[in-house]
């Protein structure tokens, strides 16, 4: 997994609640057997005016100029600011893949769908929960200050305005943080406990032999 230590970037505000993973990456793009190639279809139905299909040349498709991600001033944004329950719905990990491959390193929202939250951290996409009032403040600053940027310090668990005018603290499980900061492979870590797994399994299947 890619390491995450600190990141500074342009913030794009997506001002809707309950953005589901179907919206982040529509189903027709889930037919791929690869992990890559999802970026141009991130938010496909909102981003383009036509109906997207796999294999299309996305650079030739008509853009929806009213969609915030298409606005000139947000080109190159790497931090997505969202509302409550971002990433609800389907468990498709293609959603964090699409966001990352579209250039995002961080998503900030008051809350996230539980599966999406885990999927994102498992890919090094840092999902940060802030208080409602803090998120409101970030939306306001995005509107007020063209080129509004934030810096995220994972070790210190801080989101800070680049001009240093304010900083918000966020929570993350310490074992999660450790994995992200070091870029450790989750599976290798778990396999490091193979003896404990084997011991548990032997006892478990002996007590409930119908599971074997």
């Amino acid at each position, binding site marked *: 997994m890619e390491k995450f230590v600190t990141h500074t970037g342009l913030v794009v505000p997506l001002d809707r609640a*309950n953005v589901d993973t179907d919206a982040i990456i*529509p189903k027709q793009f889930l*037919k*791929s057997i690869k992990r890559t190639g999802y970026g141009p279809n991130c938010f496909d139905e909102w981003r383009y005016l036509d109906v997207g299909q796999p294999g299309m040349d996305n650079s030739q498709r008509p853009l929806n100029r009213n969609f915030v991600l298409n606005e000139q001033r947000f080109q190159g944004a790497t931090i997505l600011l969202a509302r409550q329950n971002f990433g609800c719905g389907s468990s498709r990990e293609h959603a964090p893949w699409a966001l990352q491959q579209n250039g995002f390193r961080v998503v900030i929202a008051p809350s996230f769908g539980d599966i999406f939250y885990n999927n994102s951290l498992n890919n090094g996409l840092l999902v940060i929960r802030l208080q409602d009032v803090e998120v409101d403040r970030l939306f306001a600053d995005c509107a007020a200050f063209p080129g509004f940027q934030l810096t995220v310090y994972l070790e210190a668990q801080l989101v800070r305005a680049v001009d240093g005018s304010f900083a918000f603290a966020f929570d993350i499980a310490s074992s999660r943080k450790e994995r992200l900061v070091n870029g450790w492979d989750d599976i290798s870590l778990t396999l490091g406990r193979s003896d404990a797994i084997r011991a548990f399994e032997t006892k478990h299947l002996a007590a*409930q032999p119908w*599971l074997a």
Partner: protein
Amino acid sequence: MAGRTLYDKLFDAHVVHTESDGTALIYIDRHLVHEVTSPQAFEGLKLAGRKPWRQQSMVAMPDHNTPTTPGFTTILDPISRTQVETLDANAKELGLTYYRIGDIRRGIVHVVGPEQGATLPGMTVVCGDSHTSTHGAFAALAFGIGTSEVEHVMATQCLPQKKSKSMLVRCDGRLPTGVTAKDLVLAIIGVIGTAGGTGYALEFGGEAVRSLSMEGRMSMCNMAIEAGARAGMVAYDAVTENYVKGRPFSPNTPELWEAATKHWRTLASDADAVFDRTVVIDASTLIPQVTWGTSPEMVVSIAGRVPDPDKEKDATKREGIERALVYMGLTPNTLISDIKIDKVFIGSCTNSRIEDLRAAAAVVKGRRRADNVKLAMVVPGSGLVKAHAEREGLDKIFIAAGFEWREPGCSMCLAMNDDRLEPGERCASTSNRNFEGRQGAGGRTHLVSPAMAAAAGIAGHFVDVSRI
């Protein structure tokens, strides 16, 4: 010491190790696999030179991409076909239990798991699919995972997990005639909201839930995720026991069965268990539910009206309602029963089991699809459900009423195959998500029970099936 919840019991019984921050490594008993969320996991496993930890725990089948055309022999879409063939190859190479296209046992993974007894009480069950919560109906801890986690479970049989908070949804009273588990769970989502269960494991209890069949309980747990909860569950009882008995993966000797049921009977929350939150619903006064918007929480009863955003004070919510009404092509204050539909979809992991098909068939029997309804399709959840329904003659009832009788699969619940809504089309659907574009770009989904979907197909608009 306070008693333990069912969730406590299931979680604690699977903890292999606990980190200092409380993150636990939990052991996974059953891993269900389908074609969409697994190819990258199989590939990752191979690239790392790893083998599945316990391949007997895996049961695999294609369901999302498979055609429902009667008698189909091949998948015409080459990308879909490649995805299914990739699962064929991976299952063969690793020697997994696999229900390929053409096998009568194949179907939607959340219908087939329980049907085969591959889902058993007390298990931890995972699948790369959010509707894995379905299996919690068996007093199992079941939840959806992403592809990295699919690979993690393949490689280690374990997952690092933070324990969730617990919520009891107590459904008092009995459901009136014509009102189903689907209506009950939609009403619950309407109360707690689509994010109300985020961070929680839900337990559905109370007289209304105890009175439900396993099919009904599965419909409810299936939609726990639509309330934001990864896992939903129901305590074990005689209904569970009767369903599980005699299935291919169930304990198959008298000694094993006795030992298993003895354990399973402990799978209920203790009387003095403390939940982090309790929600009480009066099921006895419920009437059938219909969603009007683009989130499952946007739901009213069939007697209700499309909401008026001007009456919503919260700005984000008001904008959400306005946006949903534009997408759905609806005018505020319209009576739900005045909404005309173009298509009917009866199927999905929520409502494609035999009881669902019987309820729909009972409504359409001797009647005829309305002229304004272009397509009404019935998609059984598995080959075995289909065969069962045909033995009861349900297929003939549907066909006589102008409903199409299809092959099993996920179908128009998410429209990965050819079954989909065209832009602007309005559908009475027994599925679980009314998100924008879910059933096809620009399609408009109204979530209802099977009987309500069938009745809408006959009337051409929504009607209260409990009154006909």
